[in-house]
């Protein structure tokens, strides 16, 4: 472990920060209102290599490490939380499981598409009746000849409306419980696959969130990811990595809120002095800064574990995600507080940040689920 970033990590941080400030931040308020998926931004992110951050160069990726992934997602999310999660889902929820569990053919076919942004990725786990309880899912996949026939509905799927490549989980054998779950790579144009309702969300509004509907959807046999029955393992393994991302996204949103609050507290005058001169305001700023710093270190800590090749880092990943999400809600709340009534107005960024923060405690495992994971390790 070394807290100091390496040369290439520092360069990546400064370039992504500049890009995000100049290209993403100006669009963020607009797409928050319109809910429009930021296609142009995604194209530019692809050109810079941010859609395949840790994917090897031979598959079209940038071949950085997981700490770099965390740095990049933080910087992108600091400018625009919607864009942050779009990139995170593409990298960690789609490209990662293909890299980790895919066959050589699958990697060669799908990874370059995902890294170049020619196709965007999405992952379908959640269903109307299966959220935290993943194993309660009802979608099934039956092998018939050369195809698996998928039937079921997925809900709340980020990138759903725009994605070309979906990782979908379904039961190949419901009897075996979670050991009977399998993962599939599903192309958007597969017959029997259609999109359902679009979600109208409180925050991260420009993420193309929608339902996926599978009606006798014929997925070629070779699109099985990993082995039959390996689905649940693939899902959990992937979530460990993607929790680094969500933690980083939370740190980015929080940092943006702190930056706004610091700036505003120096400008806003009350009772004859800038409000930053009031100790109660300083208290909040100091608490926010400390929480963010701690969260960032927890996120890096999980990424260091992954980079060091440690197999089991569920605890570290869950701690990072739980803590960062938790403080993001608190930090953005304090930022709104420091802005006073202006913080409640859509004219100010902190209003959006407060809404964007809430989802962090919910997706990719609610805070309660993270605590179950952490406690099971600590009480082992």
């Amino acid at each position: 472990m070394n807290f100091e970033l390496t040369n290439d990590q520092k360069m990546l941080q400064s370039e992504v920060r500049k890009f995000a400030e100049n290209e993403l931040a100006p669009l963020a308020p607009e797409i928050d209102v319109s809910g429009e998926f930021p296609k142009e931004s995604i194209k530019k992110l692809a050109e810079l290599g941010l859609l395949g951050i840790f994917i090897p160069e031979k598959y079209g990726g940038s071949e950085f490490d997981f700490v770099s992934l965390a740095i990049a997602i933080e910087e992108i999310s600091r400018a625009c939380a919607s864009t942050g999660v779009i990139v995170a889902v593409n990298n960690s929820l789609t490209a990662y499981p293909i890299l980790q569990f895919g066959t050589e053919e699958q990697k060669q076919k799908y990874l370059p598409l995902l890294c170049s942004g020619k196709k965007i990725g999405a992952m379908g786990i959640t269903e109307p009746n299966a959220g935290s309880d993943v194993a309660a899912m009802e979608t099934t996949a039956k092998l018939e000849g050369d195809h698996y026939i998928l039937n079921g509905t997925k809900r709340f799927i980020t990138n759903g409306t725009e994605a070309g490549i979906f990782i979908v989980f379904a039961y190949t054998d419901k009897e075996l419980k979670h050991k009977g779950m399998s993962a599939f790579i599903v192309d958007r144009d597969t017959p029997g696959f259609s999109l359902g309702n679009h979600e109208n969300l409180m925050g991260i509004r420009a993420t193309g969130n929608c339902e996926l509907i599978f009606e006798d959807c014929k997925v070629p046999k070779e699109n099985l990811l990993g082995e039959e029955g390996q689905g649940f393992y693939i899902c959990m393994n992937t979530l460990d990595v993607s929790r680094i991302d969500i933690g980083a996204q939370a740190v980015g949103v929080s940092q943006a809120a702190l930056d706004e609050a610091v700036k505003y507290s120096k400008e806003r005058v009350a009772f004859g002095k800038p409000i930053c001169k009031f100790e109660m305001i300083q208290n909040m700023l100091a608490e926010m800064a400390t929480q963010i710093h701690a969260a960032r270190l927890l996120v890096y800590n999980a990424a260091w574990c992954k980079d060091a090749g440690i197999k089991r880092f569920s605890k570290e990943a869950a701690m990072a995600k739980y803590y960062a999400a938790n403080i993001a809600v608190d930090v953005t709340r304090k930022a709104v507080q420091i802005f006073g009534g202006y913080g409640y107005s859509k004219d100010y960024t902190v209003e959006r940040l407060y809404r964007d923060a809430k989802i962090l405690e919910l997706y990719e495992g609610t805070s309660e689920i993270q605590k179950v994971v952490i406690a099971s390790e600590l009480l082992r």
Partner: protein
Amino acid sequence: MDIIVCIKRVPQTAEADVTIDSSGKDIEKDRLSFDMNESDSYALEEAVLIKEKFGGTITVISLGHQDTEDTLRIALAKGADNAIRIKAEDFDELDGYKTAQILKSAISDLNYDLIFTGCIATDDAYSQVGVTLAELLDIPHASLVINIDTSEKRAHVHRELEGGLTEHLDISLPALCTIQTGINEPRYASLIAIRRAAKKEIKVIGKEEIEKENLLLNTQIEELFIPPKTKEIEFLTGSPAESASKLAKIFKEKGLI
């Protein structure tokens, strides 16, 4: 086409609270962030665009302290081929002329068709280094350049003048241009380019490699200070009716009405 681009690492002061350090001649830099001088990044991009068209090499050179290497590496990631740092720690106080002298000495042995610098550094705002360097190298120069068209031996350049005027010049190469912002759209470095650049070596040269006989410091900073506030601007916010009543109140307080 071989191009040399002179770049400088400068503190980002636009939105920061700037304070004077204990010497009284410089600002506190501890908490500031640093980046490539703005017009230098346009100069670099212009060089990369020309290289993409005609081939050749780009050498970036900077007189700076160790952390300047971070900035040089970014330049490598954006398309430069070689990078040289001249150790600023070897030369006490600097002014525009002395900086140009040191750069000249480092550049003399290099091959070049064009030298680009930014038109102004955002920290000391001297606007001298580029043109002085051209004079010392005895080559033609054009300042405030907003467009360049090059052929083998000559360059056709546009200069930005006051009052919306543009001057078109034809100059023979080798030549030096100080580049104005807005001439192009500087690119961001891609991740792969960053990874490659992180491994590249930066040549570091010190006072042994620089002719130092005639290094001259013509100007010295006496004092740097933040001018005292003379006037206070207050923005009246709220609906038109609200701000009007606030304004009326102020007029009354000041005894104007």
